[in-house]
């Protein structure tokens, strides 16, 4: 076994609380499948037979009960639960499962939806005997209007600066704009080794990492590192150019080795160092070099190397914001050859379901209803004369007759009253939108939901508007817009 796959599925989805309040992020439906299915499928496609899933109790339960997931995923899932309250970072999670890790690892986040050829990342890892290789992609511009958010994304978002060498593979520099207030500072020695550096902004880190086994050991002994993306990766990128790694005992790498010894990992150490010696010999004997322009040895003698595969085309989404969630829902159905309408769904012949929409199992869609560019989840009931465009209807939603829903997200088990007219709204799980004319305010089941903003302010309020107890709104839309 060359690589062990680790799936990080314990994240709370803090950047899309509106959606994840009731449904854990890994279980959010995307194209009528739970989000976690996509990374699992990615791994399965390339031939992994086993994956360690780090997640919460709630998700574990869902995983074990979800029949569809069971039939779809043939890999053996080794589910490790961590406590939600413990507030563990991704690096903490790796530390948590270090006993299970025997080889180099491939860490994937549960919110990754991509059609990347995964071997590209792994090949970099293999070919260069890298310590870290990761996946990035061009950031997608989200074209769709996001509920509760007007126009494009706010400007002034902090960009990530990623520096790669001329081949675009070697990762040389990584920093967030927020940390670069005093300007971008590079050591001249790095520039001397890699005289041509491309600095790219506008890249999306897919949170997919190949890591050496020794990095896990390093994590075990450096408990202060809590997050892979936040701390470990920048650290490794920086450390590539510390000459002292090999000379000074006090620095991290040898410390790593020493501590490995301390921790009675002698066996692994010996076996890897044997490999190392062979590799070293191979490199000395061959005329291969990773760079040109000067006469120094391959990699300039550096032992620690980080690589990145940047996807130029293809799809890569991280479903961690509402905008990304909506976009993913739109794009994903095109990738899989599932029939757009599940066989178990009951669709009236006198309704209109566009070929760009998907209808989940056990749905009921009544007469004179039109559904365009939308996803309708499992067991949802859509009554007569409903018009749904550009929307995401999750599972178990009931939409009464005469509704007009556009560009909205309706979460699980919501109930939309008769005649509602919604544009770019977000309806939380289990919410009831009262029928037109009936002025009852539905009791919010969500104590966290923000107070309804002033109706006329609706479009300018920056966070996604949570349309939970807002029947008055619905009416407002119905009449005024």
């Amino acid at each position: 076994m060359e690589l062990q796959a680790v799936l990080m599925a314990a994240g709370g989805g803090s950047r899309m609380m509106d959606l994840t309040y009731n449904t854990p992020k890994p279980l959010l439906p995307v194209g009528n499948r739970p989000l976690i299915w996509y990374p699992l499928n990615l791994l399965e496609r390339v031939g992994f037979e086993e994956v360690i899933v780090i997640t919460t109790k709630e998700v574990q339960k869902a995983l074990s009960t979800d029949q569809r997931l069971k039939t779809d995923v043939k890999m053996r899932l080794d589910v490790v639960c961590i406590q939600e309250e413990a507030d563990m970072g991704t690096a903490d999670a790796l530390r948590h499962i270090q006993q299970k890790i025997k080889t180099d690892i491939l860490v994937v986040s549960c919110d990754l939806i991509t059609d990347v050829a995964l071997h590209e990342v792994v090949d970099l890892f293999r070919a260069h005997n890298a310590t870290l290789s990761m996946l990035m992609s061009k950031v997608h511009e989200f074209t769709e209007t996001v509920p509760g958010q007007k126009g494009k994304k706010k400007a002034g978002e902090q960009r990530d600066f990623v520096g790669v060498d001329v081949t675009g593979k070697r990762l040389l520099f990584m920093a967030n704009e927020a940390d670069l207030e005093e300007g971008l500072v590079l050591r001249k020695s790095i520039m001397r080794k890699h005289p041509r550096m491309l600095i790219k902004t506008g890249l999306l880190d897919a949170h997919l990492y190949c890591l050496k086994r020794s990095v896990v050991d390093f994590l075990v002994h450096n408990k202060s590192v809590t997050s892979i993306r936040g701390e470990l990766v920048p650290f490794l990128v920086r450390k590539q150019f510390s000459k002292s790694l090999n000379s000074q005992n006090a620095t991290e790498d040898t410390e790593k080795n020493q501590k490995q010894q301390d921790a009675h990992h002698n066996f692994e150490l010996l076996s890897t160092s044997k490999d190392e010696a062979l590799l070293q010999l191979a490199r000395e004997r061959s005329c291969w070099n990773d760079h040109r322009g000067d006469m120094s040895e391959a990699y300039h003698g550096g032992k620690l190397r980080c690589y990145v595969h940047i996807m130029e085309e293809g799809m890569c989404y991280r479903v961690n914001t509402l905008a990304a969630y909506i976009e993913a829902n739109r794009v994903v159905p095109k990738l899989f050859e599932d029939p757009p309408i599940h066989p178990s769904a009951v669709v009236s012949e006198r309704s209109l379901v566009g070929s760009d929409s998907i209808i989940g199992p056990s749905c009921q869609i009544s007469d004179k209803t039109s559904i365009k560019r939308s996803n309708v989840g499992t067991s949802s009931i859509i009554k007569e004369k409903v018009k749904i465009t550009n929307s995401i209807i999750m599972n178990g939603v009931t939409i009464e007759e005469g509704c007009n829903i556009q560009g909205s997200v309706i979460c699980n088990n919501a109930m939309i009253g008769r005649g509602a007219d919604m544009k770019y709204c977000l309806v939380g799980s289990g919410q009831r939108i009262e029928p037109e004319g009936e002025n009852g305010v539905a009791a919010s089941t969500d104590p966290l939901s923000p107070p309804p903003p002033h109706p006329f302010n609706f479009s300018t309020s920056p966070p996604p508007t949570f349309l939970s107890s807002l029947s008055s709104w619905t009416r407002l839309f119905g009449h005024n817009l």
Partner: protein
Amino acid sequence: MTAPKAEKDEEEQPLQAVLVADSFNRRFFPISKDQPRALLPLANVSMIDYTLEFLTSTGVQETFVFCCWMSSKIKEHLQKSKWCRPTSPNVVHVITSDLYRSLGDVLRDVDAKALVRSDFLLVYGDVVSNIDVSQALQEHKQRRKMEKNVSVMTMIFKESPPGHKTRCEDDDIIVAMDGKSKRILHYQRAQALKKLHFPMNIFHSGSDEFEIRFDLLDCHISICSPQVAELFTDNFDYQTKNDFVRGLLVNEEILGNQIHMHVTKDGYGARVSNLLMYDTVSSDTIRRWIYPITPEANFADQEGQSCTHSRHNVYREPGVSLGHGSQMEENVLIGRNTVIGANCTISNTVIGANCVIGDNVTLDRAYIWNRVHIANDVKVKQSVICDNVEVKHGVVLNEQCVLAYNVVVGPDITLQEGTVLSMHHPDEEDDEDEDEFLSDDDVGYSKDKTKQKVFNPAEVGSEGKGYRWKSSSLDDTEEDELAECIWGLALNPDPESDSESEVSEGSHDLGSHPASPELDDVKVFQNEVHGTLQRGLDENISCDNLVLEINSLKYAYNISLKEVMQILIRVVLEFPFQQQGAQISTAQYSSHLLPLLKKWAPVFKNYVKRPQDQMDCLASMEEVFLERETHWAALVKVLMSVYQLEILEEEGIMRWFKQSSTTGKSQQLRRNQGLLKFIQWLEEAEESSEGDE
């Protein structure tokens, strides 16, 4: 100021060029004292001919040559050259003025005279290149058309990563550019920097791809719009191109002007800005990197220069004779009518015309100009030998030697690495410092003068003629050039120096700082006093102020007056050891110490007032000398000096001498011959003065 912009027929405008045939620095002194840099031979052809050939072949039809230093020579050279023949496709105008002090002056003059009508090329007279700029020119024009007059200049670069031979250490530039538009965002010389700093505002240009390049060599060829000349006029503080580029980049938001770049992949372009570059460009020429500009091409079309090219890049002009057993290994160019003796080994070398080279001579990376005589058994490594030099037998020139015009060296002398010999005495510099750019007629004058000075046989050999040239410490900072050395900067900047900083950084990560050993107050005070005196010496601080400083130190460290005096004595007596090392002889010691005592006498007088002070003072002197047995002979000189300076009085000294000494060693000290004599002399003086009474 520029000619009225006739945009419509801009396409038909002939391409113009401004050639600056002056470097405005003294980098090539002493060579360029006799010959302007643009006329120095590179592979037996004057450098300006390479530049003109480049301009002509790239399609320039009108060139303005601006000269200042030795302009008459350049003018004369050009008038004789093919460029001034009526058939020349490139019309050359020579513009001379003694008032040009910088590139800025030249371009301001271009603007004032309205010489350029359209985009023009700006080059120096020492650029060697075969780049075809037409593509860059087209891109430049395209940019100018797209966004009217925003991009004012396109700089041409050649790829030359760190470690590459043509990477000129003076021009160790780092460029940040926009990945797509090729706009220069940041341009910096990086030779003294360990960390490269890029301000954030350069990344706000809306692009998402930037490139930071450390692998570029500025070819010193730029495509400029007429606006460049105007901008130089508007900003009279711009002196160099560097000023201009930086000024434009910094003020981009205000002026709205942009600079773009063009990187040539396979062209060659380099400026001979120091002798190291001279070495590199010469060897590249011979190795045919600048094809089609090769030695045998005789592009300058000079008679008798046509040479043959045989394998291993050996070029011979007509009339070369090679003695028996001599070998031209590789990359050799030999000028016409040069005679080479037997059993010579010649590699990577250029020899000019009419030279005579003796037997058993080894030449490697030697650049020998015309009419040079080299006797037998000479070895030359990586050196430049100018016209009419005579090297007598048995001379060895180590790396980076320069023999300027008419020097005679030898016989049997080895010149150290980096020796520069010239017929110009380095001191004459001072006389003509004022008007050194003026003209060449003061050279003859200085020659007369040098004859009066004596040649040092240790420098040039017993029959030698010439002076060792010291690169005078010119504070010629107006050019913000580096401390100028003819060979350029250190050859191999030690890459380890970086790793050192990394090591320190690494340890910094862990926060382990070795604590410096604690010093007690007295020790610290002593160090401080030493520092104060040192500074006093360096900065010539008056004794009053030194006293003030020492007094304030006294309070800072809570030292008693007696201790202050003891420490002061100790510091002063040990001062020569600190400065010259502990190994100095007694004579050196006292010769160093006595002026110091004299200088600081007022300080001592401030602390040595009462008879008891004198005793303390003497006691601490004794203490110091007891520690340094070998320097006892100096004690008497010290005592003599302090006596004469009236710091100590004879009574005190006598009392100290007669003091019942406690240790055997101090008794030994008192039995010192010199001291006894001194005491005797003191006694006599006392008696005589008593007798007088």
